[in-house]
Structure formats: C-alpha cells, structure tokens
C-alpha cells in the first residue's frame, strides 16, 4: 500500500470509507513524515499532535457508527498561520504575536471544522504574509523540498512545502499578490487563488484588504475542487463576499476542452522570464492544443506596471490594517520602561515588527501622506483600472489565459533578502490577475534541467473558478 501521507483527498476519502485505514492512521503517517523531514524543511511553525489525534479519533468513532460524513472529514490538513484557529496559537510568524492564542476561528477554519477536518498544525509564512520567500518569518525560512538550498516561495511557503513533501494531504494559504501561486509553482503542487470575494476573509489577519484571497494547495485539480466547494460562498462576517452562486466545482473536471479558446499574453513570455520556464509552459499549451483547444497570442500591455501599482496600494492598505497592532489588546507589550501611551506604541511596534513589515508600513505611510497621496496612491489606483480593462478586452476574445507563474524557478535562500525591489519583481506575473480580482490556478508544468519545478497559471474571468479547474484537470490528464 502507498504510504498514507502521499494520498490525495479523494484517495483518502475512498480508503476511509472502505475501512482500509483510519483517520488516526492518516495522522500517524503525516506526523511521521513531519518528524523525519520537517527539521530540514521547516514548513510547520506549530504541530498540534494532540488536537490532530483527538479530531481523528472523533472521526473514526463517528464513521464506525455509520454516520454520513463530509468528504473532507478525517483528512489531515496544514493551515497557514495567518488564519485564526480558536485555542491554537496563531502568530502570523511575527514576534509581535509569538504567543497569541485567538479567541475565535476564521470563517474558513470554522467551515473546515464543520466538514470534520483534522488540523495537523499551522504553517510558516513571511511575517503578516509580506514576502515572496518565507524568509521574513520570525521562525526562519521554509526550505524547498526539491532543493534545501532554495526557498519554497512565499508568502505561503509552509503550506506549499508541507503538501509537496507529503506532510499533509492538503493545506490552506492566502494569495494577495501571488502568495499561493508562486510557492505552489516553486514546490510543484497545485495552488488555487480564487476570485476576490469568493472565499470569506473573516478571521484572517488582513494584509491588503482590496487584494487578499484565501485558497488551497493540493496534489490534484480534483482535490482543489473539493476544498473550494467547502470554503466558497457568501459570509455575513465579510461583506466583500458577493452573493454569487457557488456551482458544483467537480462538474467542471471532466468537461471537454475542445474549442476552448486559450490566450497566451506575449508580455508574460518576454524579457526577464527564463527560457526554460517559457518553454515548459508552451509545451503544456501545445498539449492542450492537441486535445482540441484553440490557442492565440494576446496582449496585456499594462503588465509591466503591475508591480508598481501593487507596491503602492498594498503597503498603503497594509499600513492602515497594521495600525491596530498597538500591543494593548493583544500582542507583545514593550520590553523596557515606557514614558506614556505614545511611547508605548513606538516601542511595541519597533520591537514587534520585522524589517520587511517596517519597510512596507513606511512605504504605505509615505504614499498616503500629505503631498504624495495624488502622485502615488491615486495614480496607482488609476493604473489598476487600466490593468483591469486590459483583461476585460482579452476575455472578449478568449476563455482563459495561460502564462508562467514565476519568471524563474525557486531562487536560493538569501539571494534576494536584502534587495527588496528584486524580491518584489518575483511577483511580476502573479500581481496582474490579483489586481483585477481574477481566479487563477498554479499547475505543475514539469521541471527545469536542474530538477526544479516550473508552474503555469490558468487565469479566467471573475468567479469562473470552474473554467480554471476544467483546464487544470484537462492538462493533468494529458
């Protein structure tokens, strides 16, 4: 029998129902893998062994009594440490929240609990999800399972690595400018970034409120559909979730792609993108063409402005969101003596935040300050509109867009950490879809000559997650 930690959700589901193994066996297998590999990889910042065994035994008992349980019940998952988990430490990988235990669950966590999930633990990220390498975590970097000298990507590096190294059956992450897709591509797994508003953000520490989305890392498109089904939909606690019907996502998995129109944006295959990355993506597109899809070149001329738009509006929103971290109601209080309340704020924030958070709060504060607001923030919001219009035009001609996720495969630990601008460029190809709030999935597209995974992304119009899954599923079978 395959090692149980290597199973997909649907395989685990079938095995549990056939009584081939128990949920406790699944937890055992994942914890054994964590024990043997995670010392090197560092994908988990907290492993909740007792909680996982309790949940698994609870499930096994219910199943033995013949109860009808949801698909995700009894299946082990890793959750990004940005999502509140009631009673279980949630640190955002920041010194500021090192000992914080939230008093309530994020909506996504609550929904997965209702499904009967078995949470293995919390996974590593760049502090407050700010980074593209997981190097900005107070718990240290997550290494790439394919090459321990390289990063797993970020900010959801831990969630990507734990699935890639079979230390969870699936995981949950967040994507603001690429934080699910880029680590998924670096680690050779599927990573789903949903349309803005498709999944509730309640109980997830806000980074950039007009960009943040929640999604999953999986081993197959089928598994992506299962998780999305469980977490999508309107939530009264997050009023940016529109009342758009949630379709049966699994119904898209076997849909024929004959006649489907695929656009290849020329700007995503140009300067700065590795030749091997372009080639692997084009190879995959050729397979889809062979299966009956129609392929044409398209243009998204404003692509090159996306990084600037993002690194103005995101820090602006971040600086406002992180104003609530004052060390009073939660989080670390200052270590030394304080003069007064304002001094308390200065000290707790100076001590609690890491370098990248300080940089981004300062950029955000600067672009929002008197005299600079119009030149930076308003200008960026206008160019964001131009990016959105580009996509609208292209989607009049094609059904989906396929492009590389990251210009390069995983880079080395330490390579970009002191060069913020170069690190920001790692998001160049993932930001545009985020700017327009579009769904996009990162799919494995083979390896580089040095054995590193390469990913492609399938982007569709807003709320058309089903089409994204249709293409990902077709590709996985070719």
């Amino acid at each position, binding site marked *: 029998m395959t090692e149980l930690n290597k199973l997909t959700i649907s395989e685990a589901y079938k095995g549990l129902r056939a009584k081939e193994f128990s949920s406790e066996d699944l937890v055992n297998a994942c914890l054994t893998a964590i024990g043997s590999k995670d010392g090197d990889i560092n994908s988990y910042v907290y492993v909740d062994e007792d909680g996982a065994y309790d949940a698994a035994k609870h499930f096994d008992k219910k199943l033995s009594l013949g109860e009808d349980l949801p698909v995700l019940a009894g299946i082990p998952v890793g959750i990004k440490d940005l999502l509140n988990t009631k009673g279980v430490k949630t640190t955002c990988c920041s010194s500021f929240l090192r000992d914080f235990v939230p008093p309530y669950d994020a909506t996504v966590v609550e929904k997965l609990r209702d499904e009967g999930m078995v949470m293995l633990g919390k996974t590593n990220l760049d502090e407050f999800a700010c980074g593209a390498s997981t190097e900005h975590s107070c718990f240290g970097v997550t290494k790439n399972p394919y090459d321990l000298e390289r990063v797993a990507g970020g900010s959801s590096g831990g969630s990507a690595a734990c699935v890639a190294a079979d230390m969870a059956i699936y995981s949950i992450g967040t994507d603001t400018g690429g934080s699910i897709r880029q680590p998924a591509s670096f680690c050779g797994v599927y990573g789903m970034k949903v349309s*803005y508003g498709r999944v509730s953000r309640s109980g997830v520490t806000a980074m950039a409120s007009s960009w943040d989305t929640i999604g999953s890392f999986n081993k197959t498109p089928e598994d992506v559909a299962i998780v999305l089904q469980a977490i999508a939909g309107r939530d009264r606690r997050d009023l940016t979730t529109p009342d758009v019907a949630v379709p049966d996502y699994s119904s898209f998995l076997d849909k024929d792609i004959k006649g489907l129109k695929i656009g290849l944006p020329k700007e995503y295959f140009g300067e700065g993108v590795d030749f091997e990355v372009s080639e692997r993506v084009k190879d995959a597109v050729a397979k889809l063409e062979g299966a009956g899809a129609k392929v044409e070149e398209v243009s998204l001329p404003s692509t090159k402005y996306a990084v600037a738009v993002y*690194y103005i509006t995101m820090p602006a929103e971040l600086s406002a969101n992180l104003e609530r971290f004052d060390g009073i109601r939660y989080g670390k209080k200052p270590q030394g003596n304080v003069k007064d309340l304002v001094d308390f704020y200065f000290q707790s*924030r100076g001590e609690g935040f890491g370098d990248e958070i300080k940089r981004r709060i300062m950029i955000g504060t600067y672009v929002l*300050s008197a005299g600079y607001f119009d030149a930076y923030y308003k200008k960026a919001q206008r160019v964001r509109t131009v990016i959105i219009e580009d996509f609208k035009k292209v989607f009049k001609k094609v059904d989906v867009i396929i492009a590389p996720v990251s210009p390069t495969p995983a880079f080395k630990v330490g390579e970009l950490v002191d060069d913020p601008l170069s690190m920001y460029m790692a998001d160049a190809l993932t930001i545009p879809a985020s700017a327009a709030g579009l769904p996009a999935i990162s799919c494995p597209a083979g390896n580089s000559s040095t054995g590193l995974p390469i990913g492609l992304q399938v982007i569709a119009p807003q709320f058309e997650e089903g089409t994204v899954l249709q293409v990902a599923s077709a590709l996985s079978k070719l």
Partner: protein
Amino acid sequence: MLSDDQVKHVAKLARIKLTDEEVKKFGPQLSKVLDYMDILSEVDTKNVAETSQVTGLSNVMEKDEILTAQSTREELLDCTELPVESKQVKVSRAI
C-alpha cells in the same frame, strides 16, 4: 533619495521606533522602491477612474440583527499582556 530626517519622519507618522542603524539601512532601500514607482508616469490616466475595490458591490445592506458572538468578553480580555481592571485593559498614561 530619502534623507535620514525623512525616514525618521515617516517612521514617526507610523509610530515605529527605529534604531540609527535601521534609519541608515531603510533609507536607500525605500528610495530605490519609491524611485521605481516613477514608471507609472508613463501611463496616461487623464480620464481613467480609480479602482479601490473589485467586488462590483456598493452599499451592502444587512438586516439589523445581532449575530452570535464568536468569543466572550473574558476570552477577549485574556488576549492582553497588560493588567485588566474592572473588565478594562489598563494602559500607560496618555498625557
């Protein structure tokens, strides 16, 4: 290029205490990022509206009803490292 004083001013607005070494380190890094933003001046946005959100929603209305609280007052107060008196968090003097 941001001067040390400008860096200190922005940090002050953001209520972040920086060490002298941090001021020296962040100045050039922030300047490089802000200089890069000039690329946006290439785009003509004269008649373009600003995008502040992409939900397509405006004025979301809900029934005026109390949702079940997700946590109790005691659980919320447990989150602070500061002393709690009469169900309130005691902070440093404001003035």
